[in-house]
């Protein structure tokens, strides 16, 4: 098993989906591809992660613990999302989706997974850039799967803003390359390879690196949904079909964050100053702050979750900025936790849309009465995402803030704590009206085994990760922390 084979799986599934003649075939390839990818991916990641960096394609691709962590997340979320979509999109009935679209959906879905995997496995920074641009292009079609006015609008904004962002990031990459070409001797073809640069970071020109980091931060920050570059995010996440929203929110944003992190590591080592860390903290806190009003006063629950993603990416960025064992561990664990929490919420939102037929918060009442399982899962998701124990995000939030306090960033942490209270208030305000009470009108109360199963699995993961970080995951994150902390090449 190599990185190449792993990357081939989604490509093959994508084309199988495109080539399928019936819905059943599409569904089969769609789900089976994800299952295969998840099984192979998790096996690969957890068996090989501990054995040092694994290179492929002439060193252009590689897997270090950091990449492995994200890869494990991508394939796991891909599986959940695919299984859920398998129940959600392929339903027969009056509102059934035509085969043409399903084929397209399956194709782009797996292509999307492929580009994300490529992102996390990329060693060559140029390839990483290409693959991140690829994720935009692939997912733009997923956002706009139903060709409605609003989804076209969302997809357009997504495309334009992320393309601009990614272009700026490329500017930064060229600057990095330039500073490498200037100062580092003997790089040859490896000059854009992250492993090479990380090893020789001290030789990079610090001033150019600072400039480069600014471009990278703005560029990948746009993709990662950091404020004030996040504007595309609520539109795209709210218009995409729920399983796609889950992937967008859960892993895509994190992949872009990984991009930032890679450069943060280089910049920190090159400049030997907290410059990049401070910028990360600033934009992290700003993202949380910007999310607050939108969460407090929100009418559309999918947008609510989207803004919450802005908030959580802010937290991750702040955690990375805080640094130290606590901050890095917290931020990386937060990526995992947020992915599970947010995807559960988006799965719930798919359910809600299905049953209540509206995205408006004000029109939904008494979920618990209509569908206790959904109501419970939804509320659990809300509690998880706002950082309540015994759910997982509490743990990572705790670590991130520990990191902040340990690093002496009292002011930033104080603001974060303050803002988090408002975010909690906003979420609870919406949730308690949606989940509790008596439903206003009779709503469809049909159940779907697969979807229910996914919800239960989601809640299970939330609680499990909240009380226990499994050993392999722990070791993986520890490895990633040592990479991010610059202690290993």
């Amino acid at each position, binding site marked *: 098993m190599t990185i190449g084979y792993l990357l081939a799986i989604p490509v093959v599934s994508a084309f199988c989906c495109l080539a399928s003649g019936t819905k059943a075939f599409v569904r089969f390839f769609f789900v089976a591809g994800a299952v295969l990818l998840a099984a192979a991916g998790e096996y690969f990641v957890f068996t090989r992660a501990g054995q040092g960096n694994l290179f492929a394609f002439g060193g252009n691709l590689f897997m270090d613990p950091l990449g492995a962590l994200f890869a494990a997340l991508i394939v796991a979320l891909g599986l959940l999302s695919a299984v859920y979509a398998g129940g959600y999109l392929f339903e027969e009935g009056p509102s059934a989706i035509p085969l043409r679209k399903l084929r397209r959906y399956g194709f782009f879905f797996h292509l999307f997974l492929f580009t994300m995997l490529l992102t996390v496995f990329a060693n060559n920074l140029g390839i990483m850039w290409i693959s991140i641009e690829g994720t935009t292009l692939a997912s733009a079609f997923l956002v706009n799967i139903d060709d409605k006015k609003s989804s076209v609008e969302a997809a*357009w*904004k997504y495309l*334009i*803003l992320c393309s*601009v962002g990614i272009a*700026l990031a490329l500017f930064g990459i060229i600057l990095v390359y330039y500073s490498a070409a200037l100062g580092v001797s003997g790089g040859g073809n490896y000059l854009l390879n992250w492993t090479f640069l990380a090893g020789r970071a001290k030789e990079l020109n610090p*001033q150019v690196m*600072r*400039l480069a980091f*600014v471009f990278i*931060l*703005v560029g990948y920050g*746009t993709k990662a949904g950091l404020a*004030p*570059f996040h*504007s*595309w995010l*609520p539109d795209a996440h709210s218009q995409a079909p729920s399983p796609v929203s889950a992937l967008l929110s859960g892993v895509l944003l994190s992949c872009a964050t990984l991009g930032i992190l890679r450069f943060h590591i280089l910049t920190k080592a090159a400049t030997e100053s907290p*410059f990049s860390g401070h*910028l990360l903290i600033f934009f992290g806190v700003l993202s949380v702050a*910007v999310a*607050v*009003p*939108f969460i*407090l*006063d929100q009418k559309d629950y999918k947008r609510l979750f989207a803004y919450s993603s802005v908030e959580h990416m802010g937290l991750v960025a702040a955690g990375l900025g805080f640094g130290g*064992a*606590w901050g890095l*561990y917290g931020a990386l664990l937060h990526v995992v936790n947020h992915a599970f929490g947010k995807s559960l919420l988006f799965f719930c939102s798919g359910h809600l849309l299905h049953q209540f037929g509206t995205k408006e918060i004000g029109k939904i009442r008494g979920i*618990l009465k209509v569908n206790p399982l959904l109501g419970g899962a939804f509320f659990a998701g809300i509690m998880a995402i706002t950082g*309540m*124990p*015994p759910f997982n995000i*509490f*743990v990572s939030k*705790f*670590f991130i*803030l*520990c990191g902040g*306090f*340990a690093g002496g960033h*009292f002011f930033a*942490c104080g603001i974060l*704590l*303050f803002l*988090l*209270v*408002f975010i*909690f*208030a906003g979420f*609870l*305000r919406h949730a*308690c009206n949606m989940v*509790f*009470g*008596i439903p206003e009108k009779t709503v469809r109360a049909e159940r779907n085994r697969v979807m229910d199963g996914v919800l239960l699995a989601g809640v299970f993961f939330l609680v499990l990760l909240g009380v*226990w*970080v499994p050993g392999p995951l*722990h070791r993986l994150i*520890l490895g990633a922390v040592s990479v991010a902390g610059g202690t290993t090449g």
Partner: protein
Amino acid sequence: MGKLVLAQFLFYVLGGLAGFLRRKNPEHSNRIACVSALAAGVSGMFYSAGILLSGKGIALSFRGGVPLCGAVFLEVDALSAFFIFLISFLSVPVSIFALGYNREYFGKKNVPLLGLFYNFFLLSMVLVTMARNIFVFLTAWEIMSLVSYFLVVTEHENPKARRAGLLYFVMTHAGTAFIAGAFWLLFSASGALAFDAFRAHAAMLSPGLKNVVFFCALVGFGTKAGMIPFHIWLPEAHPEAPSPISALMSGAMIKTAIYALLRFIFFFLGPVYFWWGAVLLGFGIFSVLVGILYALMEKDLKRLLAFSSIENIGIILLGIGMGVVLISSRQPIFALFAVAAALYHALNHAAFKGLLFLGAGSVLSGTHTRNIEELGGLIKKMPWTAACFLTGSAAISALPPLNGFVSEWMTLLALFSGVDCEGFGIRFFSVVLASLLGLAGALAATCFVKAFGIAFLGLPRSPRAECAREGSRSMKIGMITLALSCFGLGLAAPVIVPILGKLSGELTTEISGNIPLIHGSFLVFPGGWSQISLPWVFGVMAVSLSVIAAAMTVFAGRVSVKTGPSWDCGMRGLTPRMQYSGTGYSKPIRRIFSFLYQPSRKVEVEDEGYSVLRTAKHFESGIRPLFEETIYRPMAKFALYFSEKAKRIQTGHIQIYLGYIFVTLLALLLFTRVSS
């Protein structure tokens, strides 16, 4: 001992989960939940009492699943044991009560789920007191909030319950933010998550940090405790929960905040500062007075009790605050007395407030209303409830020889002992505070006379009150147990106070332990000012009462006793509507404290008739909820208004979005240039 701790955990967990086995039969599942909670409570009482008596703590360690936080280390020292005792002690009668009370919910609610929350609520409270690590503490603390939130919104069909739950959870979360901040500041100073490290590091903390940590802890735990002005959730949330839960929330949950405050002040922050005590006293007296004044105006029985909880938290804070003041004024012996008074009051409050909430629950289940204006005459229909409620009322009004009196007496003396300190301010305020506490005691008596008198005495004011029925046997047993304990905790003061004294003495080296607070059956104030013996008081009263009764039968013989209608100065045709209403009862108070209440009245007058004979068609009077209207509502309004305005940054125009990116990029580049 350690086995009993595990047994308690096990009972809670299994009891919570086992209810689901008999989910089809709510009777069984309720019984499983309540009985296991009861068993857990009993085992908790045993080991905590054992620890309090022997002074030897228990430490338990589990392998934690969460990395970086180390093992889950739980420890029961004397302070924890005291609060575990409090919780367990209250949970026993409450569980008995719930056996019968929860029948209310059969068929309407998910009974096993209720049982699960009930058991986990108790468990989380116990864990809060045992946690010895920030992570475990915060987890337990938040789970406590979460589970109690679920319990508050048990009747979520009612929008009021939802609102109350929202307010509660948001406020308590805000409080948690402060608490967490306080913990993290300690963590940043000591570099470890464990409480032991904090304690070891306490002496090395910088004064500025200590002050900030104290402030954060005070606001955070003050919110949970219901300290004014952070109290507004309490009168909303406590009444909405099922009554056994209200009893636990008021009796036990808010005490966990007191526990944590004590732990902070005496364990983590090292030598205390004078101003901390002053601030505690300020908040304490403020809570005491405002709490009881608002309670007086309530006609909702459970809200009244909730406001009174605020008052009692204030009394406890007065004790703690005075302890801090006395420590910093180098009066370690008096400080011991003050802290012991606070602890004692915490225990007593658990007993009588638990009792009163159970009584209110019994009334609620018998009449389906909490509005005392609709009650009346319940003493005939619900004699047991009435007797128990009366006991609770007398205890909370600090009447001898019940338990409330003892702790109030101790608090009064602790406050008064400030006159022995140096400094004009302390001396002056200690006496003023003591007399203000006296004022609050008298107002509390008024409040509970009103509550008991209007609800239980006189004639029924509505059909609901007329059809009232006494609760089931288990409800009665639950209440009677607590009523007896109100007597017991008062009479057993000579046994309890030395234990509390020892406990307070162990809190910090700044307090002198080993001071005899007891002489025979007497409670002795260490300054030699005073002593008191509740058994004697009880005995003298019993003797004098029996002497009077005997003397009367002996000297005056038997006399005829006739029953007739009320005389009422010769008025005939007395109807229930002519009785004094609860609102009328507290009207004089409302008038003289109108600066606080800002009462409003709305009268609609009938048009016909001469002006002298004009009658009111509709009369409405109310008071202005000052804190809500001046602090919280404007805050919430502002937050929403601000959000609405701030949301405009997301205009929908892609050019504007690009502009954000562009401007930020420019700014960052300029910043980079300038800063290099």
